[in-house]
């Protein structure tokens, strides 16, 4: 147990360091912006309707006071960290005075749900098919599956999402192409609502999966084909152990280890894919929120979302790293 605790402590420290560096970088970048949120609000308020130049001046002054943009850079930095530690990113500047954290928590479930479901499915299906393909080398169906998944894998998320949108939204319109749920669906009716949400998540998940499967497939197939030549597998085969049993207990289980690590490393990339996919399908998750924040010049919101993404991905990697020794007993915790 002792070495595990030491490992745990080391990994936690690493987690904290990564988050700290990442959020700092984000803070510096967002505050390097020349965008003036007061100007945004003033212009938004005066674009239409009656206005007068003097009124605009007055509005500018009162908003500056309201948004509380005083304090030296150092003071702002310190107060930022003081708030972040309790999860407060300040008010959104394009939806004042709603706190950024409120907006993030509202969008978070959609992104997390989408990511969780599609990542798990992709990992399971990809590894399953890859493992089978590595073991049954001559099966034509598996070879075909391999070619298809590897063919789609290098294509960027945007294009795959776009193609799916065209096929299922335009050519054969059977799936909803926009939004997280239908209009006026009763949210109290949990079964109906759940079904509706599921429906709307099919296309986004599908595009994430289409791209992801190929990667796991290839990795698993390579691993399995290596393991298959190992002595203990040959011995089991000769000893008459059933093929299915060999595949399951001897081959796949040993191949899973590196794939779990691979999952940890891929999480950042998968998150990117989710953001892009959300844009294409108008899915109300963090990705859409980020893009709308950028367009509105709302740096509080952008800072908040980026920080949350960094923390979330790092935390997920941490969890996987900690679970890994439990899966693969060969690994020594050093």
């Amino acid at each position, binding site marked *: 147990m002792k070495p595990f605790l030491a490992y745990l402590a080391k990994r936690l420290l690493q987690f904290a360091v990564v988050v700290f560096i990442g959020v700092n970088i984000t803070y510096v970048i967002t505050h390097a912006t020349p965008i003036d949120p007061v100007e945004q609000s003033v212009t938004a308020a005066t674009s239409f309707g009656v206005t007068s130049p003097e009124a605009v001046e007055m509005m500018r002054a009162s908003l500056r006071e309201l948004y509380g943009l005083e304090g030296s850079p150092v003071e702002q930095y310190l107060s930022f960290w003081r708030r972040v530690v309790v999860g407060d990113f300040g008010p959104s500047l394009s939806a004042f005075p709603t706190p950024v954290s409120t907006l993030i928590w509202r969008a978070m479930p959609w992104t997390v749900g989408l990511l969780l479901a599609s990542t798990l499915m992709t990992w399971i299906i990809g590894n399953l098919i890859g493992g089978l393909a590595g073991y049954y080398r001559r099966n034509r169906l598996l070879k075909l599956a391999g070619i298809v998944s590897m063919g789609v894998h*290098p294509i960027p998320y945007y294009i795959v999402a776009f193609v799916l949108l065209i096929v299922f939204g*335009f050519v054969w319109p059977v799936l909803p192409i926009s939004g997280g749920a239908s209009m006026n669906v009763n949210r109290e009716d949990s079964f109906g609502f759940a079904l509706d949400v599921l429906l709307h998540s099919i296309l986004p998940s599908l595009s994430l999966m289409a791209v992801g499967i190929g990667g796991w497939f290839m990795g698993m197939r390579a691993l399995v084909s290596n393991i298959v030549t190992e002595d203990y597998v040959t011995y089991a085969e000769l000893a008459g152990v059933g093929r299915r049993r060999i595949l399951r207990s001897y081959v796949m289980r040993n191949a899973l280890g590196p794939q779990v690590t691979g999952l940890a490393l891929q999480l950042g990339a998968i998150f990117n894919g989710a953001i892009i996919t959300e*844009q294409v399908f108008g899915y109300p998750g963090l990705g859409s929120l980020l893009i709308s924040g*950028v367009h509105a010049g709302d740096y509080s919101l952008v800072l908040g979302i980026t920080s949350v993404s960094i923390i979330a991905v790092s935390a997920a990697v941490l969890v996987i790293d900690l679970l890994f020794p439990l899966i693969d007993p060969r690994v020594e915790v050093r």
Partner: protein
Amino acid sequence: MQVLAILRDLVRYNLEFAAGLILVGLVVAMALLSFVSPYPPLDVYVVAPDVPPSWDYFFGTTSRGQDVFWQLTLAIRNTLTFGIVVAVLSRLIALMVGLVAGYKGGWIDRVLMSINDTFVVIPLFPILVLFYFIMRDAMSWAMLALITAALGWAYDARLIRAMAMSLRTREFTNQAYFSGASTGRILVQEHLPFVLPIVFSTTMNNINWSIGIEVTLSVLGFTDINTPTVGGMIYWANQHTALVAGVWWWIAFPVALVVMLFVGLFLLAISMNEYIDPRSRLARMGGGA
């Protein structure tokens, strides 16, 4: 000479490599054609808009009055250049970090790897969007290439470091060290040749990755959409609701070409990977266990 022999082997025995070479070759040919394009790159309404593919206009024309074929040659050239520049820059960083960390070990290694892990874990897209957010039109292609390269070295640096660590324990390294060679010389002269094949195959993947980023950012309008690029073409097509208006050729051809490039580079990468691992290379060529 050795390189030629390797290439010959690859083409002869490895279908994937041959296919990849053909695909990439076609794309590069398109890019080179851009130098003889009869239309100035930035001009619009130089030909009749929305003409379907025909003998006059191989790939049809866009709603902005541009010839899709010639526009695409320019676009693919710009996109490819961007991808290559980013790949080269990030290889340099990855090599430096990986070799030094692997060879030196100790606290240098730990520090470099912490930085590395940070970059692996940070979701890149929000950061890129962030940069665009502050720089807006000051974001030239050179700047974007620099930033993307600075974000794309982490994954491969680890691979290189692993190789470097194993090389460190080899005989010839000790020999060089004891004969007084400096760290730099050892890294460049002794280790680099071993590491290069891996670097090469990761370059293919890296080009894919950076072009993917460019296409995605351009499609969302987050880059300078006046320079023709593949992502930019799709962006303009969306602006003009091309698909719904029936101008499918404006989207289909750029997408097809870029998919060819991706798949081609990918095939090259995996076939080279296979070649590097001697067991699979021999298995492929029909010998060995």
